[in-house]
């Protein structure tokens, strides 16, 4: 039984069957990559995990509980954090403030009226946020306005915001898209490091095969809304069906 169990999930947008009949099981403490050509339905699938979309059919169980019908903040509080395809950060705030918000969410839950404490007096959380920024190599940018950062930095910040919550499941939608090679390698190292230090499960969508094969322990190939194969990286590499899907040849 995996930490995330997806059974028979389907989603239709008007005339387009974005997801057919997706079955997927993400095992605890593994890095599970979902790959597939553009428009295969990868982001749509992720949206069904975090409460952004409700699938038309099927079930999504996380940690033995259904996530369907729950709102995004409830799902996050269950232990799922998500990095978006285009970085979603608080661009009006500075880096440190961006980091403090997930820290509070983790400690205080979905709502707490702490109107008088003073953010800077929360020493423990400040330390935690700073440590995370050190880990992602952004500590020197902690007072920088988030909107004024490069795309790569925004992505790293978003990842740090997710990681600082110590989620049980981290969902990453193309975490290295738009990054320079060096940044991509840093990200790979960071994720590997996180993986070693903590018990964390990751589901990662990625086009960059270098990233996929550096990190993934299981790979699911999605094409036109249905999983083609699921296997280890070694077996996926030479799989004829995968090459077919990627080269866009007709079945």
């Amino acid at each position: 039984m995996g930490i995330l169990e997806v059974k028979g999930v389907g989603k239709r947008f008007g005339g387009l069957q974005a997801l057919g009949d997706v079955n997927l099981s993400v095992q605890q403490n593994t890095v599970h990559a979902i790959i597939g050509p553009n428009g295969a339905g990868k982001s749509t699938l992720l949206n069904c995990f975090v409460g952004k979309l409700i699938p038309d059919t099927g079930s999504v169980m996380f940690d033995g509980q259904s996530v369907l019908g729950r709102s995004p903040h409830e799902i996050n509080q269950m232990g799922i954090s998500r990095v978006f395809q285009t970085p979603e950060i608080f661009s009006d705030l500075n880096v440190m403030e961006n980091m403090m918000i997930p820290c509070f969410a983790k400690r205080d839950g979905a709502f707490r009226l702490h109107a008088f404490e003073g953010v800077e007096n929360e020493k423990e959380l400040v330390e935690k946020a700073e440590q995370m920024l050190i880990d992602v190599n952004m500590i020197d940018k902690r007072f920088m306005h988030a909107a004024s950062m490069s795309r790569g930095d925004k992505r790293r910040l978003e990842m740090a915001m997710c990681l600082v919550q110590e989620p049980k499941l981290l969902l990453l939608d193309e975490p290295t898209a738009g990054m320079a090679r060096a940044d991509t390698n840093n990200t790979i190292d960071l994720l590997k490091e996180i993986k070693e230090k903590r018990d964390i499960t990751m589901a990662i969508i990625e086009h960059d095969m270098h990233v996929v094969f550096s990190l993934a322990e299981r790979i699911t190939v999605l094409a036109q809304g249905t999983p083609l194969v699921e296997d280890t990286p070694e077996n996926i590499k030479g799989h004829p069906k995968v090459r077919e899907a990627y080269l866009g040849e007709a079945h």
Partner: protein
Amino acid sequence: MLGLNKKDTRFLLIVVALTMATPILLQPFPEGSGLAQFNAGYPDLMQRFAIFGIFAIGFNILFGLTGYLSFGHAAFLGIGSYSVVWMYKLLDYNVIYGLPLAIVMSGIFALLIGYISLRRSGIYFSILTLAFAQMSFNLAYSVLTPITNGETGLQVYTNDPQVLLGATEPRSPHFFGIVMNNSSKVNVGDWVFTFNNGYYFCAVIAILAFYLSLRIFRSPFGLMLRAIKSNQQRLNYTGLNARPYTLAAFVISGMYAGLAGGLMASMDPLAGAERMQWTASGEVVLMTILGGVGTMMGPVLGAGVIKYMENIFSKINDQVLHGWFGWMPDGLEDFVIGISHFFVGKSWHLTSGLLFMIVVIFLPGGLVEGGQRIRAMFAKKRGDDDDDPKHQPKQAPHVAE
């Protein structure tokens, strides 16, 4: 000190000093001089500065931090006023009963209105609040006449119960015997300064209100509110429920408005439905934007400027203008007065409108941004850096490696 860091403590102390010295600071011109027109140190106006300052500070907690633009906050102003006058009628003229009630009542109404209005955001939220405020206005004006005394407005009559009224007690609003209307005048040379009890009562409460809002701005709660304005989607996916945060902000700002309304009735024991009209709701929006949305000082500044113009510019009539421009040749004088005519007296709205447009177009951060720019200019001239991290120019984007 007081749970604030050094910089904020200094900021608060400056605000306290300015507020306390207002009766002196607003009276820069000697009595009888041509410029005495522009003195604003009289009780009625200073009270209004403090009261509208409170209104705007509270409004800014909602609008400035979360970005939810309410067009109905005047409703709470009215609720506050009615609460206070009712306590005069039932108990006595001590404002100690009415003001807490004003805060509680407006809080309850804000909870109700906020709960419904916050189901929508953006323009729909604004429209909902506007609709609620207009409904409250109409109720107060006609349907609820037994409670609000309709068109006439609520006031104290001699046959009201006033069960706590002692024989020697003041017959006008007071705070444990400190009568709001009373002032002491001090003459210093040609200058006359008026120190009014009512003003100082409002000023002390305004400082408390300011302090509270400063704490809220610096708190995790305040951070969440700013996060809501910045990216509500990210907030939700970070495990936070935006709804109760915005509702809490709505209720707090409604309570500030109720307090302000209560203070209006504490200065002048009257409450009328017109206080709830949409124009009054619009005014606080203008104040906040004019001063600087989301800044601590902006709303107070905006409230001050608008109330100043409303009271001072509107008093400048043709006679005064003739006094100023009398030295000009006749033809030119008539011409200048003809032009000025559009901007002062009854037409003061034109001046405030122009000022508002200029600020919105050239200083989107309001008057506070204007002040910051001037400061930055001077700092640059002196060639030293501004040590204030808030006002530090944004660091250049990091060059992508």
